[in-house]
Structure formats: C-alpha cells, structure tokens
C-alpha cells in the first residue's frame, strides 16, 4: 500500500473524526501489539515503531502544507516545528511546553497535559511504567529522523504538581473527564552527530 498526499477532490486537511473513533482504533492497535509483545518494553517499542512510519508521513504533510521552502537545519528550529506545527496538525493545539534538560545538553522535553493517546486509557498495575503515548514518541522520532535529526524519543507519565497547570474547572472541558493527575513528557535525546553538527553551525 502507498500513501499519497494529494489525491484529486476534497482535501482532508483540517477534517475531523470524533475523539472516540480515534480512541477505539488506537485502543485496538495497542491491544494488537500487546497480544504479540513479551514484555512492557517490547510493547512500547512496537508502539514507537508503529508511530515512526506515521511520523515520516506527517513530516512530509506538514512541511508541504506550511509551504516551507527551506528545510530546518537548526536543532531549536526543528524542535519548534515539532512542538507547534506538528502538534497543531495532529492534536489541534501546540504542545504545552518545550524544555531543555538542565543536566543533559542532548536532552529536550516536549510536554502535553492532555495527550489523546492516553485520554481513555488506564494502565493496570501489572504494566507498571507503560506509557500508552509511546506511539506519539514514535511519531516524533519519525519526524525528527525524516528531517535529519536522529533522536531517541521516549514517553513518560509524570505527576502534575499543584498549580502547575491551570486546569479548567471541573476537569477536561473537551471530554468531560476529571482532570488528569499526570502529564505526558516526551524525552528527546539527540544523537551525538546531530549535536556536533548543530554546534558547528553555531560558529
């Protein structure tokens, strides 16, 4: 099968389906991989791998539509591209924040307080640290890799501190669910070549 960006006829850009429809299909994707994974980390790898292919396509789509004539060559630019343009295209809003790690020069974090891949998911205790958002890490990795910035991307569920996020009264206004206690943090660790290249471009 191939995926084509521009078929004749109506464009799919901006069109929507219900969040439920996405959640059902995503749930089946996770369950399918769960049935074939021998461990939690294998399941996460499978989900990341599923997202990677999507990421490559999303990069093409978003880059084409924003009509950027020049490729991003700088690290901060590509991160901004991901946390705003790509996030807006996929989730209808920019990522909630983009941060760089204090301890590691090669690590950055993209934060989303309401990731749709885990909106309706509850992780049972025996699956421990599994993040259902691993699919999104795969998407990010695909976008970055496709743009020439190879990176290892992992998804983490992190507790939200008191007052950290101005939660809407009564919880999530979109789904009507109570406000989440954890946010998704996508840790992006760039490869050494990428960092070296970016440093060289600095001069």
């Amino acid at each position, binding site marked *: *099968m*191939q*995926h*084509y*960006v521009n*078929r004749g006829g*109506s464009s*799919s*850009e901006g*069109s*929507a*389906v*219900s*969040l*439920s*429809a*996405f*959640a*059902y*299909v*995503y749930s*089946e*994707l996770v*369950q*399918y*991989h769960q049935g*074939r994974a021998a461990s939690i980390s294998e399941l996460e790898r499978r989900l990341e791998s*599923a*997202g990677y*292919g*999507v990421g490559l*396509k*999303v990069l093409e*789509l978003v880059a084409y539509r924003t009509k950027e004539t020049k490729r991003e060559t700088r690290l901060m630019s590509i991160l901004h591209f991901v946390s705003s343009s790509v996030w807006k*295209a*996929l*989730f*209808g809003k920019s990522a909630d924040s983009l941060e760089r790690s204090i301890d590691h020069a090669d690590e950055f974090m993209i934060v989303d307080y309401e990731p*749709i891949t885990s909106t309706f998911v509850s992780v049972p205790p025996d699956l421990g640290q599994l993040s259902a958002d691993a*699919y999104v890490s795969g998407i990010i990795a695909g976008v970055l890799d496709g743009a020439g910035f190879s990176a290892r991307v992992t998804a983490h569920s992190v507790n939200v501190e008191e007052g950290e996020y101005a939660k809407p009264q009564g919880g999530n206004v*979109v*789904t009507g669910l109570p406000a989440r206690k954890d946010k998704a943090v996508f840790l992006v660790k760039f490869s050494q070549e990428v960092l070296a290249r970016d440093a060289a471009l600095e001069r």
Partner: protein
Amino acid sequence: MSSKSQAAQAGQALWAKMPKANAELFALTYGSLVTELVRDYEDPIEVNAQLDRIGYSIGVRCVDEFLSKADVAGMGLTTQCQNLRDTAEVVAKMGFKMFLGIQAEVGAFSQDQRCFSIYLQDNPLSTFVELPEDDPSGGEDLRRLKYSNLYCGVIRGALEQVNLKVDCNIVRDTLKGDELNEIRVELKEVLADGAGDDYKEE
C-alpha cells in the same frame, strides 16, 4: 420512527457535541494497524478476517456510547426502531455521522426487507491510501484486501448487541476504482433476549 431527515438532524446534533480528533491522524493510525496485519498475516483474506474481528470488538463497545448519547439527546432510540429500515437509517445517519462526521446513505432494500446497503462517499479510513496495481507475478494480491473491512465488523458487533445478527460485506470500494463505497448488510437472525441457558433458574 422519525423520518429520514429527523435521523439526519439528530446525527448532526450528536456529531456537534462529540470531542474531535484529527482525521488524518485517525487514517494514519488505522493505516499503521492494517500495515502491521499485512506484515503479520500476509494473506489478504486472513487480514480481512482480522479487520472484521477487530471491528467487531469496536462495535460491541461503541454501541453503548452511541445509545447513551443518543438517548440523552432525548431521542429514545430503544422505542423507535420498529423495523430494519429504521435501524438502517439510524446506523447510517446517526451512527456514522456521530463517530466519523460523514453523511452515509441507505438504500437497495431487498424485497423481503432483510437486506440493505449503506453508501459512503467519503471514507475517513482510506485517506491517503492506494492499493498496489495487480501483481502479474502472482504473489500476495493486495487487491483482494478489503481495506475498510473494519466497518463490517463494527456494524456486526454493534447490531449484535441490540439482538440483530447480521452479515456485512463490502461490495463496492473506492480504493478499487468504484465511485463510492457500499456495505451490504443482511439480517440473519433476530436474537432472543436473555443471558442464555447457563443462567436460567433451575
């Protein structure tokens, strides 16, 4: 039962209230699932069966969401579907609309009123997808793949929860060059209520 336009209006109202997700992400996610299935099962006929099974699992769950939301909007569905024709209208105008935002039509009712077709002009599952050309050397002929077979499972699973046992088949597919998508639904049996023999009182 409400007339056709009432079902369409109700469908529109339900769709408006649903939280939304990006349709392209939806299509790409489904594509990822189908790709994985093709990789694991290879034989397109087997993949079709898997898609139907997965759709069934979704159908069984989404019908609860549908009935609760449709009821809340004051439509009292459980008292309104008097026959298969009404059911068909509800599935097409309210079900498809609410979950996918698309306008589906019904038609081609059989003489005995036990079969009907659902027509989809747009298919959110197959955005960006093309099936490969016929492979002259044989191989796994992906043109035998029913890419949107998920719908068949969903309809089957959902209707079974309301005691209608149906068979569903994709008979026309825009991915194969047809001008629209057609799902043929055939009523096999109206199931009796009840939890089954195991639960009968002694």
